[in-house]
């Protein structure tokens, strides 16, 4: 889907300082060399299977299906991966690539902390140095993940600029990369940033849809009618969609964080409220004001609290291949509680956005229809924040 200069329709590209250009060119060359290298792929598969615990389960959510009374619901259990989220897929791929490139140090941004934890994990495994940039606001919202990263040997740097969230963590990681390139790989956590990151991250996450396809064909003998995933930058969503893009009968639905609602300023629903812009190395949709100043977005979910979206999602939106729907904080919290009580599965608050939309969609579909929801991560990290949202103060 990527054309040679990293474009997805009008989106994508490489809008970065000259200082970084040779670094992304070097990365692209290394990736092109290794992506079809059987030895590299065998090593990665071994890591996926033996270390991360893949393939992740495709679980038939029988109680939820019965309760909603419509389409049959399957959950793609990325929450069961090692480190508790889909982020490990991309990180193992990039860390292995970085190692092949002779890099000894990984830097990363993180929102909810899941990507930071995954990067710290891979760095520990590969014996690499690791520095994670995290918005100061998020270090408070996700204190447990900060501890996990430090436990894994990473240095966590709280970012105190701007809105002190994911956007600022990305900016700071980019600044750090411009100052130290030769031994450092920037392990970007989502399908965003300059080319080749959106393509590399997508390819490593595409294992999700590859497995869904095999598993659903095995269980149902046919493809699903809809695949639903949450979208911040969009890595678990593109991973869930990718191998279905050519299967036009499969609806692809991305759930954006609407925060307090898309008619308020406290939202992070980029496709629904943003317009085309250029930021963080890519052309895509961004929440911004009339002069192009990036908007201070909001969501209860630190992982979706980002003012942009990956360029391939922007393209899938433009051509009408995927739908992007807003889900509010309140809907997500209700879905978080619902899945816990109904299936005994506590999803990440990010993934709960996808569950929330499925709760609306499933009852409108016939019982012979099939929906797959990607549970991108586990929700342990969110319990304290959701308790606070419900007016209960618990100590972690």
């Amino acid at each position: 889907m990527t054309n040679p200069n990293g474009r997805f329709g009008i989106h994508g590209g490489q809008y970065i300082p000259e200082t970084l250009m040779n670094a992304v060119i070097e990365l692209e060359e290394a990736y092109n060399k290794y992506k079809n290298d059987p030895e590299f792929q065998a090593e990665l598969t071994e890591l996926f299977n033996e270390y991360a615990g893949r393939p992740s389960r495709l679980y038939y959510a029988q109680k939820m299906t019965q309760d909603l009374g419509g389409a049959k619901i399957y959950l793609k259990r990325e929450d069961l991966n090692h480190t508790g989220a889909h982020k490990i897929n991309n990180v193992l791929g990039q860390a292995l690539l970085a190692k092949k490139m002779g890099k000894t140090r990984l830097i990363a941004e993180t929102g909810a902390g899941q990507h930071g934890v995954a990067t710290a994990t891979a760095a520990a495994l590969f014996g690499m140095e690791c520095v994670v940039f995290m918005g100061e606001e998020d270090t408070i919202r996700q204190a447990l993940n900060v501890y996990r990263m430090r436990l894994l040997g990473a240095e966590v740097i709280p970012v105190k600029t701007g809105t002190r969230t994911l956007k600022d963590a990305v900016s700071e990681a980019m600044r750090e990369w411009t100052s130290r390139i030769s031994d450092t790989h920037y392990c970007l956590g989502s399908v965003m940033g300059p080319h080749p990151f959106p393509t590399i991250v997508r390819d490593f996450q595409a294992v999700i849809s590859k497995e869904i396809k095999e598993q659903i064909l095995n269980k149902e003998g046919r493809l699903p009618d809809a695949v639903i995933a949450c979208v911040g930058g969009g890595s678990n969503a593109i991973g869930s969609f990718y191998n279905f893009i050519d299967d036009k009968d499969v609806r692809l639905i991305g759930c954006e964080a609407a925060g307090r609602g898309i008619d308020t300023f406290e939202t992070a629903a980029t496709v629904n409220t943003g317009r085309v812009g250029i930021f963080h190395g890519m052309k895509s949709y961004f929440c911004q004001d009339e002069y192009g100043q990036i908007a201070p977005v909001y969501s209860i979910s630190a992982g979706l609290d980002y003012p942009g979206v990956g360029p391939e999602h922007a393209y899938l939106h433009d051509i009408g291949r995927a739908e992007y729907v807003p889900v509010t904080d309140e809907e997500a919290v209700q879905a978080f509680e619902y899945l816990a009580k109904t299936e005994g599965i506590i999803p990440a608050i990010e993934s709960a956005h996808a569950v929330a939309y499925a709760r609306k969609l499933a009852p409108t579909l016939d019982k012979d229809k099939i929906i797959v929801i990607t549970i991108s991560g586990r929700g342990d990290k969110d319990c304290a924040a959701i308790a606070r949202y419900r007016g209960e103060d618990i100590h972690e």
Partner: protein
Amino acid sequence: MSKIAEAFKNGKAFIPFITCGDPDLATTAAVVRAAVNNGADLVELGIPFSDPTAEGPVIQEANLRALSGGVTTDKIFDLVRDLRKDVTVPMVFMTYANVVFSYGAQKFISTCKEIGIDGLILPDLPFEEKEEFFPLCKQYDVDLISLIAPTSENRIAMIAKEADGFIYLVSSLGVTGVRSEIKTDLESIVKVIRANTDTPVAIGFGISKPEQAHKMAQISDGAIVGSAIIKLLAQYGKDAPSYVGEYVKSMKDAL
């Protein structure tokens, strides 16, 4: 011939960078005039951006001060209209691609021409993405300034060959900000540039002291100074113009 070339006819060029609207536009106007009256050969006017990824802490904070003071692209265009009543040295805008893109590139670049802006520096628009604005810049005689970095290596010739106005040579890795020492082998880079173009070269990033500026000017055609001036603005606010004037004089004299 580009109007920017004039800036390099008065000995080595001194190029100050000023963030527009920090702390307010009246101060910016006074600072620009003070800089020009004390020997600035070209003025780099920063249009603030919410997330300036190429800037260090000093200029990041200036961007925030300016934006929280309510400055906008349109107000900055008015500032330039006012400055052009008496300021004759070349002036260029330094901002980020989204500020131009979001305003409408055609409208932004044609306005530059109309108000007397001679060039555009966009640190997040590398050679590979030049086409985004280059055709419009050509159409309206606004030079799209090329940047070359310590990591450019095999890219230097390619960039230099197509450079307009002047070449902004980034002195060091990392973001903008004062540095005690510049270690890059800039002479070798300048040599490759010279072999490929006659376009003047000015060095920026990390320069704050007269002796550093002198050293940089020895190997190039001029020195660009941002953070050191912004620090004076942060320290003296509305009283900054006379301090900036004095500072610019000391730097220009050192070149």
